[in-house]
């Protein structure tokens, strides 16, 4: 009986392994015009660099992301800096599978067509955290890939530790990653191009040990020690109070905050309500706190915050997203009971 199970397992593993090999062989042949990104790669950042092999007879190129036109560009000999390469920046909006396709035209005739899939992964929430085994994490900044651009681009680290470029364009990273600056609010180290000396040190942490030595600019995961280096105020608080939110305890600040910058002032990846409900999915559908006979529950959004009239009611009106001394991670009223907390808004 035991032997049978053992054989079964061996069969299963060989099958899985074969499947993987198969997928690898197919990807390489699939995309012939798109040099980067690799097909079926996983992305964690919302910006994507697209490198396309240039065909001589192309005068117009269209880039589609999930069947929507993102880039529509005429190509003249002046606009192409490098002889055989075209470069585009694309911003990813949707988590999960993203389809990128390019179409090249010559005198309104389609000359080339190519497409591939990438997976926009998020460590926030279970749905987009674990992509199927088809998708692989691929890093650009290793010796092999850097050869592609190394003729013209210096990809070494030219920042001095602790000092910021007076002109941010002086950074070697700027030329390729400058589109990151387009966000409304920028995080200081990112906006000042302190990429390699402050965060992307190339070291792997507890959660990404398997990627060790795969990229020059890998960042440590958990990232908290790097964050708390500057945000000292939190450092003291995080270990003082009784309860900690799971991402805080893990030290993965980048779960909720985008360390590069965002439209949100606190660099939150989405607005507060949708951010919270990506993990706490039950709060989306089920009534919160109370259920009256009229089947009206406590609102979690769409109203004004009674304690702070300038803000909209959201999860963080009542809950502290980091640490708290109270049950349910409630704000304020230390240990004096829930009723007092309710009375803050529900005055008689």
């Amino acid at each position: 009986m035991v032997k049978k199970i053992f054989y079964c397992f061996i069969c299963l593993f060989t099958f899985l392994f074969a499947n993987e090999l198969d997928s690898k062989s197919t990807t390489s042949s699939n995309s012939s015009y798109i040099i980067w990104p690799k097909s079926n790669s996983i992305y964690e950042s919302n910006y994507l660099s697209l490198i396309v092999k240039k065909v001589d007879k192309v005068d117009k190129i269209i880039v589609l992301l999930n069947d929507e036109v993102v880039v529509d560009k005429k190509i003249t000999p002046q606009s192409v800096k490098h002889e055989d390469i075209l470069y585009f920046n694309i911003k990813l909006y949707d988590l999960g599978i993203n389809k990128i396709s390019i179409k090249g035209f010559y005198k309104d005739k389609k000359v080339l067509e190519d497409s591939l899939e990438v997976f926009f992964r998020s460590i926030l929430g279970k749905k987009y955290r674990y992509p199927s085994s088809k998708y692989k994490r691929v890093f650009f900044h290793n010796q092999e890939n850097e050869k592609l651009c190394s003729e013209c681009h210096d990809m070494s680290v030219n920042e001095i530790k602790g000092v910021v470029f007076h002109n941010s364009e002086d950074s070697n990273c700027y030329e390729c990653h400058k589109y990151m600056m387009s966000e409304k609010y920028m995080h200081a180290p990112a906006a000042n191009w302190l990429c390699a000396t402050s965060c992307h040190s190339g070291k792997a942490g507890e959660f990404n040990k398997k990627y060790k030595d795969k990229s020059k600019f890998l960042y440590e995961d958990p990232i908290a020690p790097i964050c708390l280096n500057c945000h000292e105020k939190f450092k003291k608080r995080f270990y003082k109070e009784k309860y900690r939110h799971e991402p805080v305890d893990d030290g993965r600040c980048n779960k909720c905050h985008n360390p590069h910058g965002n439209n949100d002032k606190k660099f939150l990846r989405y607005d507060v309500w949708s951010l919270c409900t990506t993990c706490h999915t039950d709060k989306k559908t089920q009534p919160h706190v109370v259920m009256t006979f009229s089947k009206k529950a406590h609102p979690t959004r769409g109203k004004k915050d009674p304690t702070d009239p300038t803000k909209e009611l959201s999860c963080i009106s009542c809950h502290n997203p980091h640490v708290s001394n109270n049950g349910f991670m409630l704000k304020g009223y230390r240990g004096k009971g829930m009723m007092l907390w309710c009375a803050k808004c529900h005055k008689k």
Partner: protein
Amino acid sequence: MKLKNLVFITFFALLFVIGGYYISQIDFGEKIARVEKITKSILEGVIEGPERFFPTEANITEEELSEINISKISEEIGESVKAKEKEKILLIEKKTEEALKIELKKLKEEKKLKHTKAKAKEAKLVKLEDLPQKFKPLKRNLHEPFKMGACELCHVSSGVKPGKIITKNIEELCYKCHKVRYNKKIDHKPVKEGRCTDCHDPHQSNSKNLLKGKNVNDLCLKCHSVGNKKKIKKVVNMKASYKHKPAEKNCVECHEAHTSDFKKLLKDDGKINLCLDCHSKLENHVDMKKWINEVKYKHGAISDSKNRCLECHDPHATNHKGILKKQQVKMCLSCHNKSLKSDEDGGMLMNMEKHLKDNPIWHKPIKDVVKEGGCAACHNPHGSNHFSILRRTYTTEFYDDFKTKKDFICFKCHKIEKFSEKYSDKTGFRDGKVNLHYLHVNNKKGRSCRVCHDEHASKYPRLIRRYTEFGGIKFPMRYIKTDNGGSCQPACHKKYEYDRVNQKNKFSPEVFKK
């Protein structure tokens, strides 16, 4: 009834006893003594007035004159002799008793100042009226033998030349009467060489101690003036605009005229002890001795330098305020022209000279030293209870609450309204009328002054820093000045422009919320 009376009596008796005890406990004596002291000092001040501090030369009566002869000097000498005596006695104690007796006798003989009045009486006396013309009219103070007309004590009576002195060695002549020789470590050069008459007139003088000058200072400066620099190294320029009061008044306040155990004939160690003797007692001044010893943060220049007070101050006179050796800022930079180790936290202090050289725009106190007070406007060079020997508190933090900021050293000169009013014309850092200083300083995270401004010097107008430091990273300010405003693009926010005439940004009421 009787019992009740008894109870009452005992009760009152007890009350009296307890009351009496308590009154006896209160000490009136001390209080009365204090009142007495205060009234006395007030009365003294009223009666003596300013003369109390600048004593004029007192007239000396005839009776006092007769006592002057060897008076003060001999007293001092007597003291030194006593000290020597003690030393000798200590030595002698070790020796045998016989030798002891002999030496004691010798000592006693030495101690006896055989006054030569008796001898003088034997000598041929000359009446004051018969004195030669050059001694007339007679001056206020007369040398005792001269007064008595005992010229023969010093002069040859039957010589060819009437003025011929018995012996040309004046030293021998003087010490004949003024018996005890000076016996401390260092002698004044004329004393050492026996030139008593260089300073003292052997016959008569209008000033005390038969001095040749009008007063002590006049006499001293005859030799120690700048004109004699070739002959004497130690000269004092008393024509400078700022003078040390004792030096102006009387050299002898600090120096000994004849001999001393300390360098430069000082009365005590001149580097600090002598200075503090007076400067811990002066009215309207801080007790320097206490201050230097007890203050939390000490300035290396006085606490452990080679010359201590004299590191910066000249004891006589200079052309710089506070009798400093150099102009105030230059004085500070004479040490701070290199990176020095701080005693406070062991860190390195800035090379201030280089910093000022590199950055052409200076903070006003440094720029206008005479009016604003130089470095000492903010730093107390004698030490302070606030870090970096600042005169008031300041911060090293990036964020600091405005409540604590209000007693910052900056607000000694800069008006606080510039920072506390939401809409203001008083500050140049405003967009329209919106006070941008208020925005930066008063919000929940109030930034301290040092975040944007360099306290000493900068390349940029308004002393804006080139870099501000946050979390161990130096962020550039990227400040650009325009005619009516400017723009700033630090790490804290994206590039914002401001204009005093045409408002550039819209401010929501949220911005002003605390």
